[in-house]
């Protein structure tokens, strides 16, 4: 997830972010990102289109849902089809024919999480390609070079990723290295006028390390910051942009997102349920199809079933963010959070502790 430049007042002119409203109780904000491929209202949910495609839905369908920014993964695209080909195809925008904004990550995360034989040194991340077995080094320079070829509107620094469960000196080492790698990324960045390089705040679960990292990175002139590993209540904590594979991935397992959680539509209980997934949802799937039909289709080998759910789940996330934004602008965000949590969990005591605590820390109490 990412937040924009840290000037807090509405009157200042940050590079790409324009603040529209702020919640007086929590740190939630509503704003606009001014990016090369158009304006994006925040807070915003960014669907993840890993390999230059949004999992079975066309760019026209994605546009029709109101999406104005989505994600591509540098690790995957760097291997297949590769940066040279994408450059020939007029960048990732041209290759996948997406007219709006794109954000790419550095490739570092997948490297560490997907590749069993990866090794991190000061140089970069050394790994073996799972497709052709060749050994490659992903350095900060190489990551930026690939992302320059992809041409995404927001690009990410290569950071030294450490799992949040790790403790000890490795966390501090990764934090300081990420700062050094940020400087190398900034130096290597060939297109600062066309592509916005974001820094990634590290430091694990150690508040002091996080503070140090923040202090150092904000000294660099970057248009935005990212924080890895958290989610959910982060709008309340002041985050503007969220990406997640959850809605698209869960769609492919037959799961539809609803205010009370999710519906496992393959289950027999939906066999004769002739209502839509969500009567309040305005997406094409809910306009045209019943849970019963989707249930039947999910039990066939027609992939259309998955596409119906992907459309709905993305629409759901986008609609949710839009509702969040409206509540911030209309100065009733805390009530919105309470209603949302109520619908999802019922009793406030059933809400997960981390969420209750985090919300309380910014002045929003549940129940």
């Amino acid at each position, binding site marked *: 997830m990412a937040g924009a430049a840290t000037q807090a007042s509405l009157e200042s002119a940050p590079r790409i972010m324009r603040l529209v409203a702020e919640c007086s109780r929590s740190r939630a904000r509503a704003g606009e990102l001014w990016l090369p491929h158009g304006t994006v209202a925040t807070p915003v949910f960014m669907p993840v289109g890993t*390999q230059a495609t949004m999992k*079975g839905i066309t760019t026209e369908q994605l546009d029709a849902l109101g999406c104005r920014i989505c994600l591509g993964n540098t690790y995957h695209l760097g291997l297949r*089809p590769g940066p040279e080909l994408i450059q020939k195809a007029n960048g990732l925008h041209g290759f996948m024919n997406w007219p709006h904004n794109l954000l790419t990550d550095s490739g570092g995360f997948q490297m560490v999480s997907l590749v069993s034989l990866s090794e991190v040194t000061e140089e970069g991340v050394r790994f073996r390609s799972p497709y052709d077995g060749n050994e490659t080094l992903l350095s900060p320079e190489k990551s930026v070079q690939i992302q320059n070829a992809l041409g995404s509107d927001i690009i990410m620094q290569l950071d030294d990723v450490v799992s949040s469960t790790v403790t000890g000196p490795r966390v501090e080492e990764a934090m300081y290295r990420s700062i050094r790698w940020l400087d190398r990324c900034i130096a290597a960045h060939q297109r600062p006028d066309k592509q916005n390089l974001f820094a990634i705040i590290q430091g694990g679960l150690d508040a002091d390390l996080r503070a140090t990292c923040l202090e150092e990175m904000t000294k660099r002139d970057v248009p935005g910051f990212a924080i890895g590993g958290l989610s959910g209540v982060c709008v309340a904590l002041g985050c503007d942009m969220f990406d997640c594979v959850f809605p698209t991935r869960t769609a492919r397992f037959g799961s539809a997102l609803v205010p009370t959680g999710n519906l496992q539509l393959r289950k027999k209980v939906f066999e004769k349920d*002739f209502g839509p997934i969500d009567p309040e949802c305005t997406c094409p799937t809910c306009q045209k199809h019943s849970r019963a039909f989707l249930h039947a289709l999910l039990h066939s*080998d027609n992939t259309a079933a998955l596409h119906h759910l992907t459309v709905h789940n993305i629409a759901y996330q986008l609609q949710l963010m839009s509702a969040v934004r409206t509540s911030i602008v209309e100065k009733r965000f805390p009530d919105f959070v309470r209603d949302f949590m109520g619908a999802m969990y019922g009793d406030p005591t059933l809400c997960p502790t981390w969420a209750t605590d985090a919300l309380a820390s910014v002045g929003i109490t549940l129940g």
Partner: protein
Amino acid sequence: MKLSLTKVVNGCRLGKIKNLGKTGDHTMDIPGCLLYTKTGSAPHLTHHTLHNIHGVPAMAQLTLSSLAEHHEVLTEYKEGVGKFIGMPESLLYCSLHDPVSPCPAGYVTNKSVSVWSVAGRVEMTVSKFMAIQKALQPDWFQCLSDGEVSCKEATSIKRVRKSVDRSLLFLDNCLRLQEESETLALSSRLECSGAISTQRSLLLLGSSDSPTSASRVTGTTGACCHTRLIFVFLVEMGFHSVGQAGLELLTSSDPPASASCWDYRHEPPCLVLQKSVIIGVIEGGDVMEERLRSARETAKRPVGGFLLDGFQGNPTTLEARLRLLSSVTAELPEDKPRLISGVSRPDEVLECIERGVDLFESFFPYQVTERGCALTFSFDYQPNPEETLLQQNGTQEEIKCMDQIKKIETTGCNQEITSFEINLKEKKYQEDFNPLVRGCSCYCCKNHTRAYIHHLLVTNELLAGVLLMMHNFEHYFGFFHYIREALKSDKLAQLKELIHRQAS
């Protein structure tokens, strides 16, 4: 419904089928094809992506093999499969089997036919079959039939004869059941609308129809339908009189303006007779005598059209069967549509049209999609000279490579790649930034490149199937449009020559 032929040239029928559907205002062009679906949905496509395709046929094909297992759900749903699948405006034809998945032989008995669904085998007697159709409420449906003969090699004459006998018996039983359920439905609807009173005076219409022929109410629709049905009701139900309102309906030729219960054009609460048309199935394997018998006997029944079954197989078996086909269609009435199952390749389509076939299934573009290929064959028999040169050079190059690859590759659909298509998985498309087919106006060709489709296939992305399906369907529907145009302007020979040049 009414089939009107514009012209017949060289055995090919060009025309329209009008007054189709529940509201009677749909039209279909012939020769034409039906939209292939799996479990009521075009493969890979949602409503949005389906509607991006130009030229989608007015009628979609549903398969009982994918829908029979949902019988209970559809019965409870009550409003018919069209609405259930989200295609309420489409005409629907329900076939027994899925043309793409061959079904194992040995499961037809004198009393039942089995279809194979994802959940397993579904055995259907005539009454179960008709109950399912009642829940589905399609516009047309293939009658229960014994089509196993085509699954096996070298079937005995005895077996072939049995397939014809069984299919005729199934047909007669289905027709009878349909009639019975209609008169029952009619009576209950008339009762509930209050048009019947239970006085004991018999009222006869001044109809010229004799009682025996009037009992045959299935097989025709049209303005006279409702009067004939009421006559049957009176004869069969005995001594009921029709109330004043009912009498007005019977004696007037137009539905009265005040009729709240009999205007069949606008669905009143319980009185619309939504009739599904039975399509009779012509069997007979490869035995001429049996084929003719099947055709003649089926033609005697009041079916809405004919399905020519048992002609599916590989290209060599079709060649032998084409001779049978002409003889069969010669026995069929001109004013009823002829469908054929299992034939969808462009060259085979043309051969069958020349032998009097009107409607085809569109599963070929789906098979092409499943093997990661795109249809590229040319059907524009009158292109501008420059385009021809470019396309020809391209096609020749591709055909050369094709010959080499065809021999080695077999595909996921157990079919070899034909010369009507290109294989997007091939490395040479990795940097090809052209559309699949230059000049194609489909969503895929207007928005994406061969290189992109290649990437999607290599990375196993779901979008590959979506985009290829959109292109392949549009290309295929365009082909049928050109067939009709060629027939209109007497240019079929040119089109045929063009297709055959590419079929090698």
